[in-house]
């Protein structure tokens, strides 16, 4: 049975190696470009913020001008001011990993980190 010659086996091995190589690269490429923060006001998505632009900004939304958010250059986002009674939103601190979230219930606001990547590392993150 001479159908597969040495050369053929070599080519198959090369295909395998290249395939595994691609697979490995695909799975280990940092997916920073796809990480975004979504801001919800009473379950309605009101803003999407790209976390990978390297921009620093402080902002509010029209519905809740007394609640202030801060985005840092390294792509971390947080509540920095709020007129709520418990300040749990501010105490949550900076979030930036897909699966993390921060909420201000009295103001009906939820900030959530999401990733376009189907293979998100985390289904959820607690203790943040």
């Amino acid at each position, binding site marked *: 049975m001479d159908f597969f010659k040495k050369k053929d086996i070599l080519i198959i091995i090369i295909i395998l190696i290249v395939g595994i190589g691609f697979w490995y690269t695909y799975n280990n490429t940092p997916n920073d470009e796809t990480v975004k923060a979504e801001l919800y006001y009473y379950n309605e998505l009101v803003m999407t913020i790209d976390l990978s632009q390297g921009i620093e900004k402080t902002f509010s939304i029209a519905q809740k001008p007394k609640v202030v958010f801060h985005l840092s250059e390294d792509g971390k986002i947080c509540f920095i001011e709020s007129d709520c009674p418990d300040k749990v939103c501010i105490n949550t601190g900076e979030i930036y990993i897909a699966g993390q979230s921060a909420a201000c219930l009295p103001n009906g606001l939820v900030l959530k980190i999401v990733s376009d990547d189907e293979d998100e590392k985390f*289904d959820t993150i607690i203790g943040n």
Partner: protein
Amino acid sequence: MIKKTIIYIIITIVLLYLVACSNTGLKRYSAEFLFLFDTTTQIVGYSTSEEEFSDYVNFIHKELEEYHQLYDIYNEYDGINNVKTINDNAGISPVKVDKRIIDLLLFAKKAYQDTDGKVNIALGSVLSIWHEYRTKGVDDPENAKLPPLELLEKANSHTDIDNVIIDKLNSTVYLSDSEMSLDLGAIAKGYAVEQVSKAVEKKGLTSGLIIVGGNVRAIGYKGEDNEFWNIGIRNPDMQSDEGDLYRMNIAGMSIVSSGDYLRYYTVEGKKYHHIIDPDTLYPSEYYRSVTVICEDSGIADVLSTALYNMPIDQGKKLVESREGVEALWVYNDGEQEYSSGFFDYVSASLE
């Protein structure tokens, strides 16, 4: 030569297929809602269609809302006797309540025994003082004050859990001490999540997550391929980076964290959080956070509070004495302790 080329192409396609696709009929959906149990709720589920998932979400929401209203100590609801009704009738009369309240109170009495009194639902009189001082202190940080110890000690003479009289047959609850009150904060959320997740599983959901605040309950495996759910536990040290994040792999289990990092107020530069040690009547200072992994979300909730209020030796003894329970303790300086099987659930420590 053409034949061979075709074979190469086929091999390549097969390889690409193996790498790129896992072809299942279930799709991932998620939904969120606010307000229940004073926190956010997230539902993740693998379902055949959006409609089917919506049905599950509506069911979970309705069930959780009912538990929320029954266990509420602050608000009244039309036509419902809840825990506030029981508190309002302390020393006056027994209150007829839903079986779900009776079941939770029986569970809570057992929890009290199992944790050497470190989780006490009859601590309401003490907790309400802290709640009042904390709320004022957050609102007006300049004038934040600590409650005087005498006040706390006086309240503590009305925290005997034996004065919670449960009549299972007639489905009534009576607080025989008129000064006492129930506070289910350490226990109700986990218990409700457990009951609801069992119910939705019975209804047919095979793969899902119910996340209520720091309580995570996994239903089955993730998707159809028997994968584990990836749950991140972050070091509560706000300054720390991704280095201190554990990736936990669970299926059909619960993870609950208790910590000092969200609900607190500051008096003269020192933080005072909301988990009160029934023995000292002050916020427990052993750890920054404790995380418990076990099957039952209600037990995980109880244990995370109990462990938070215990020195490490006592806590480890408690964890190791119970089958299927693992824990992570994080000290104030970031140092950590683990139970013997904790790392069985860790897929990667991303350091």
